[in-house]
């Protein structure tokens, strides 16, 4: 039986979990803000190794939890993004190793390490590519932009898109692939121009 307690007017949502890791509310708030800011970069480095959307989501979830568990060890004088990306890349490596054991085949540790190094060491290039991607996306037709937004990475949405327009699902996937290829070429063309 629990009596009601005096209500704080603006109770933050992290009180229960912070008690577990013994973090202050300010640290919890800072953690969530830093991870949200770094999330695009975490997503990028992990997705370089783990491309399946469901696996990617699992690895990112695992990485975020590890970052939280180790947040007390984070030195604020160093960049958060690099520190967090290292943890995320390690989570991706662990996932690939486990997958290799499960399936009986997979990328070697050496290649995983090499991809981790390249992925973690090309932040500026990655930033530039994303900036160029903006322009390449804007150059697509509105219909193609809409299709990418609605269908990319979700089988259910792609199937629904195909059904509504009386098209075959395979045609939708082919179109998505061609659009991805076109964006990749567009970025590389622009990179070539800029260099």
């Amino acid at each position, binding site marked *: 039986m629990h009596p009601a307690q005096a209500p704080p007017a603006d109770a933050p949502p992290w009180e229960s979990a912070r008690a577990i890791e013994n973090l202050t509310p300010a640290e919890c708030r800072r953690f969530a803000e830093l991870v949200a*800011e770094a*999330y695009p970069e975490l997503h990028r480095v992990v997705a370089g190794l783990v491309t399946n959307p469901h696996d990617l989501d699992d690895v990112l979830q695992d990485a975020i939890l590890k970052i939280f568990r180790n947040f007390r060890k984070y030195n604020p004088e160093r960049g958060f993004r690099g520190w967090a990306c290292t943890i995320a890349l390690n989570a991706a490596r662990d996932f690939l190793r486990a997958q290799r054991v499960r399936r009986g085949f997979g990328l070697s540790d050496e290649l995983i390490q090499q991809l981790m190094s390249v992925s973690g060491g090309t932040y500026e290039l990655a930033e530039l590519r994303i900036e160029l991607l903006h322009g390449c996306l804007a150059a697509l037709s509105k219909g193609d932009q809409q299709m990418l937004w609605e269908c990319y990475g979700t089988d259910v949405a792609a199937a629904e898109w195909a059904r509504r327009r009386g098209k075959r699902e395979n045609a939708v996937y082919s179109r998505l692939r061609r659009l991805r290829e076109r964006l990749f070429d567009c970025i590389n063309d622009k990179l070539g121009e800029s260099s």
Partner: protein
Amino acid sequence: MSSDAIPARNTDGPDLKATLRRLAAAACERPLGPAEVEELEMLLSGDLLASQYYLGYTQVHSSLLQSREQVTPECIWERVERDLFAKRRTSRPITGRKKTFIAAAATAGVLLTLVTVLATVSLPRPPIVGRVVAIAERSTWGGDPSELGAVVRAGGTLSLEDGFVTVRLKNGVTVDVIGDTEAVFESELDVALRSGLLAADVGLNGRGFTVGTEDADVVDLGTRFLVGKNFSSGTHVRVDEGLVEAWLKDEDGSIRSVVELIAGQSGRLDRSAGVDTQGESLFDFDTAYAPVAKAKGDVRRFSGAARPFWSALVGLDLRPFETLTKGRVFIVPEAKGVVLADGLVVSGRDGVTEVAAGTAVDSYLCHYDIGDGTRLEAAGQGGISLGTDIVAVIDTSADLAATDALFANPGTRFTDEPFRGLDDSGDEITLSADGSTVVFDLEAQPGRPLDQFRVLVRSAGF
């Protein structure tokens, strides 16, 4: 140097870039097979430029995937918390029941207004208009299923065959979608009802909220109302509180006539029959909506495994194995407005608590029964946030039995097994300090398949 500047490794064989593109594209769409992994290993090993080219391709894939996400500190925190509950369940040694009073709501329905950090790619993405805050047990979907807590974006469709779903919009409007219904959330102020029934509870910020159908637009002027769309008999409106304007539309969208409806009034708008506010409504709002209103009660948000129970309440059998919850926790509404003639004294581990005589309370019974199934990860974890104070949580078998007569629905059958209440072996309840949210982590197991506890809240209006 651009990453496109990678040279072909073997001019007689397939172009290296083309091969890497083929493998990268395949990796983006499906798991690579052994031969493809071997080929990738051979092409990339020791070649940093080739690795960069490959990662450049997967980055496009990653950016497109990510464009669908809107990442905020709030959702980061939700992910952490969701996992923490799961980890605690499996890793913490069992040391007896632990009940912790905490300083604030955990998975409460607090929609934070923290700064939104947009994903890096600015594809045209509809804004978030609201969030799913309740999904009734036994709900079935006609289209893409949604999840509890999921965001609803502008243009998002909810297609529900049975059950009900509640969406809280950012402006505070609460919309109950009751199956069989298809509704499109065009914006915070505009929902298109293609067929079926929905109920809207509009706060001060939602004035002007409109439910549009093929025949009519129903414009709220500060109220609570229901709209039903029936293909054979047009659009039906009932106003429970306040005032609405209902506009009958022609096929070209022009307004043919307008009628004002006030609390207690109903109306039917149909292109062939016109506007009728006098006749009997062909839409049985009471039968369709009363169970939803009852099931929700004063609960503002259901989280995790918590599901509003909206099956028939009279004669309910809540003994072990009779009403299985399949990993969910059913929140069963019980008596409302019970004025305690005598003070209610309940003994718990944290001491004795008394609810004063004369206090008016509503009761919700939380029911979890895994039957003879095995425990699922993250099952039994969730919470409910109420719009009123929680005055007591009754969680021992003895206290539950002692209060059944006062609060239970007529004809409900309970067990007298000692494991009915929460166990000393891992069940946890956390009550927020503001007294409006209870978070639970229940651990039933074969042989002791049932967990129940009762939440008493201060009755609204008292």
